[in-house]
C-alpha cells in the first residue's frame, strides 16, 4: 500500500509539466479565445466589451451558415465513404492476393501527399476545360459532362471526392491491420459451420473491428473539423462561397480581415460544436460503468 502511494506521487510529479502545459497552453488559450469573442477586438485584441454583438453578426452572415452546412456534408460524406471504401479495400487485400505489398503501397500513397497537392491535382483533373470532361469529350463523347467543381450546388461533393481519395488509404491500412489481428481459427470454424463469407464479415468481423472503426472515425472527424488547405487549393471556397468551411472562415477573418472578435466568436462556436458531439461519446466510451468481466 505504502509503495503504491509513493509511486503515485512520483507519477504526479512526472506528469506535472505536462499538466501545466495542458492548463495554460490549451485551456488557457481556449478561455482567452472565448473571452476575446465578447469584445470589440479588430486587428489587435482589446478588452472593450461588446456583449454578444460578434455572435449576432456571425449568425447573420450567410457565409458562416454555409460553412457549417458544408462541414456537416463533408463530414458525413468523408467518414461514410472512407469507412466503406477502406473496409472493402482491406477485405480485398486480406484475400491473400498476389502483389499485396504493391497494392497496399498504391492505395496508401495518396495519404503521403499533403492536402495542398491533393487539392491542386484534383482541381486540374476536374477543371471542365482542362481535365477529365475535356478528355472524354476529345475521345468522342461530346455530350459528356462532369463540371461539379464549377457548380455551386455540387462543388462540395468534389471536396469529398478529393478527401476520400486522400484518406481512404489510411483507413484501409488501419482496417487491414485490424483484419490481420483476427484469429484464423475463427474463419476455419465458420467454414466448417457452413456460414457464408459475407455473414462472417457482417456479424463477426465488423463487430470485432470496433476499436479500429472508432479510431478511424476519430481520425477522420479531426480532419473534417480542421479541413482548410484542401478547400483552399481545390476550390478556394468557391464558386462564390459555396464550398467554404469554418476553418477558412476563421482564418480569413483572423488575418486578412483583421477582425479578431468575429474570428474568435466563430472559433468558440466550433469548439462548442466539437464538445457537444464528442462529450457524450467520450462518456460512453471511457466513463460508463464497465461491464463485468466474464
Amino acid at each position, binding site marked *: 500500500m505504502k509503495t503504491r502511494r509513493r509511486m503515485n506521487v512520483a507519477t504526479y510529479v512526472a506528469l506535472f509539466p505536462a499538466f501545466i502545459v495542458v492548463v495554460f497552453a490549451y485551456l488557457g488559450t481556449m478561455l482567452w479565445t472565448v473571452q476575446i469573442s465578447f469584445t470589440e477586438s479588430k486587428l489587435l485584441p482589446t478588452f472593450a466589451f461588446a456583449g454578444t454583438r460578434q455572435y449576432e453578426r456571425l449568425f447573420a452572415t450567410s457565409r458562416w451558415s454555409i460553412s457549417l452546412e458544408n462541414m456537416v456534408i463533408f463530414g458525413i460524406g468523408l467518414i461514410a465513404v472512407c469507412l466503406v471504401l477502406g473496409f472493402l479495400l482491406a477485405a480485398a487485400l486480406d484475400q491473400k492476393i498476389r502483389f499485396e505489398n504493391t497494392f497496399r503501397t498504391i492505395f496508401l500513397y495518396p495519404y503521403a501527399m499533403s492536402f495542398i497537392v491533393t487539392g491542386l491535382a484534383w482541381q486540374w483533373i476536374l477543371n471542365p476545360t482542362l481535365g477529365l470532361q475535356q478528355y472524354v469529350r476529345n475521345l468522342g463523347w461530346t455530350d459528356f459532362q462532369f463540371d461539379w467543381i464549377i457548380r455551386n450546388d455540387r462543388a462540395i461533393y468534389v471536396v469529398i471526392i478529393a478527401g476520400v481519395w486522400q484518406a481512404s488509404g489510411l483507413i484501409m491500412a488501419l482496417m487491414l491491420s485490424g483484419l490481420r489481428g483476427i484469429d484464423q481459427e475463427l474463419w476455419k470454424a465458420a467454414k466448417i459451420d457452413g456460414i457464408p463469407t459475407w455473414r462472417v464479415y457482417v456479424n463477426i468481423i465488423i463487430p470485432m473491428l470496433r476499436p479500429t472503426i472508432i479510431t478511424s472515425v476519430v481520425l477522420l472527424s479531426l480532419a473534417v473539423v480542421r479541413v482548410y488547405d484542401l478547400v483552399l487549393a481545390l476550390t478556394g471556397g468557391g464558386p462564390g*462561397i459555396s464550398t467554404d468551411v469554418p476553418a477558412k472562415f476563421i482564418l480569413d477573418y483572423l488575418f486578412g480581415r483583421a477582425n479578431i472578435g468575429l474570428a474568435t466568436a466563430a472559433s468558440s462556436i466550433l469548439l462548442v460544436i466539437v464538445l457537444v458531439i464528442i462529450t457524450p461519446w467520450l462518456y460512453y466510451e471511457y466513463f460508463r460503468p464497465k461491464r463485468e468481466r466474464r
Partner: protein
Amino acid sequence: MKQMTKALFGAAAMVALMAGPALAQEPLKLEVFHWWTSGGEAAAVQEFAKEFNAAGGQWVDTAIGGSGSTARPIGINRIIGGDPPGAMQFNTGTQIDELAAQGLLRNLDDVAAKEGWKEALPPAFYEAIVRDGHVMAAPVNNHGQNWLWYNKALLEKNGIAEPTTWDEFFAAADKLKAAGVIPVAVGGQPWQLNLMFNSILLGEGGKDLYMKVYKDLDPAAVTSPEFKKVAETFGKLRDYSDPGNANRDWNVATGMVISGKAGFQFMGDWAKGEFVLANQVAGKDFGCILGPGEKNFVMGGDVFIFPKLKDEQGTKAQDLLATVFMSKDAQVKFNAKKGSVPVRLDVDNSKLDACAQIGVEVLKDPAKQIPATDILASQDIVQSLQDVVGEYWATPTMTADEFVGKWNDTVAQAK
C-alpha cells in the same frame, strides 16, 4: 583587490568593444520586412536595397513568401511582441489604422516635411498615410487596379478597335465569341471578381457613385438604378467567360490573353509582369485601357511603416530609409521593375512603358485619382463585400435586387 581590477578591466574592454563600431562609422543597419518574393518583385526590391546601401545604410532583408495575408500577421505579432522589424510593408490604406492608434509606429513628420512629401504625392495618397495629423508611413508605389488588358493581334485579326465605351466593349466581345475565342479571361476568385466589378462601377457608374458606395457606405447609392445597372453588366460578363473560371489564379487568366485563347482581362497592373515575362511589349503585343467608359485611375499600392525602435542607430537608419523610399531616383528604378507607377507625381516618367505612360497621363488630373477600396473602407468591409460579389457571380439565379440587398446587409453588419 586584484580580482576587482580584473573585473574593471573586463568591463572597460566590453564597453570599448561595444562602442567601437559606432565610432567607426558603421553603416546604418535596418531590417526590412516585406513579402515581395516573386521574380519581378524581388528584382524591384533589390533596387531599393541598392539605393539604401549606397546612401550609407545596410539593408537586412526579411522576405516572407506567399501573400500579404501570410506575412502581415507575422510582422504584426513581432511589433506587438516587442521585437519589431525596422521597417515593414503594408498595403496602402486602413491596414495600418490600429497600429498607428496604439502608438506603435514612429511618425515621419520631419522626413516628410524635409522632403516635401505633401507636394509630391497625389492628395488621396497623402491622406492615406496621415493619421491624426501625423505622417505614419512612407508610400513606395502606385498600382493601377482598374486596367483592362487585351491581346492586340487577336483584336486586329477580328477587326476590332480598342473599345472606349461599354457598348463597344460588348460588341467586341460578341465578335470574339463568334470567332470561337473566349472574350474575357476571368479568374473566379472573389478578390479578382471584385476588381472587375469595381472597374465596371467606375467605368459605367462613374466616380461619384464609386465614392458614395465605398467611402460614404451609402445604402441609398447601392439601391440606386445606376448601381443595379452595374450589377447587371457584371452579371452579363458570365456569358462571356469560360466555365473553367472557378478558382482560377489571376496569372493563369493573364496567360490566356497572352496565348490568344482569350481576348480581354480585367486586372491590376501587376498583370503586366506576366506579359513582360512572355517577352511581350506594352502597346505593341498587348494593349491596356483604363475603363472602358469613364477614364479613372484606381490607386492602390504599398507603404512601409516604421515601428518605434529603442536604439538611436536604428531610428537614424529609419530616417534614411524613408528618405530613400521617396527619393526620385529610387522611385523610378523600383517602379519600372515592379510594373507600377511612381507615387511621386514629379518624377521623370520617360523610362516607364507605354501602359504606365497612359496611367501617368491620367493621374495628372487630380479628379481622376481614385483611391482603391483598401484606402476607403476597412479590410473587414472590403473583403466581406468580395464574398458578396463572388457569391453573385457564382449564382446566376441571383437577381440584381438580391445582390443589392446582400450588399447593404453586409455593410451594415461590418460597419
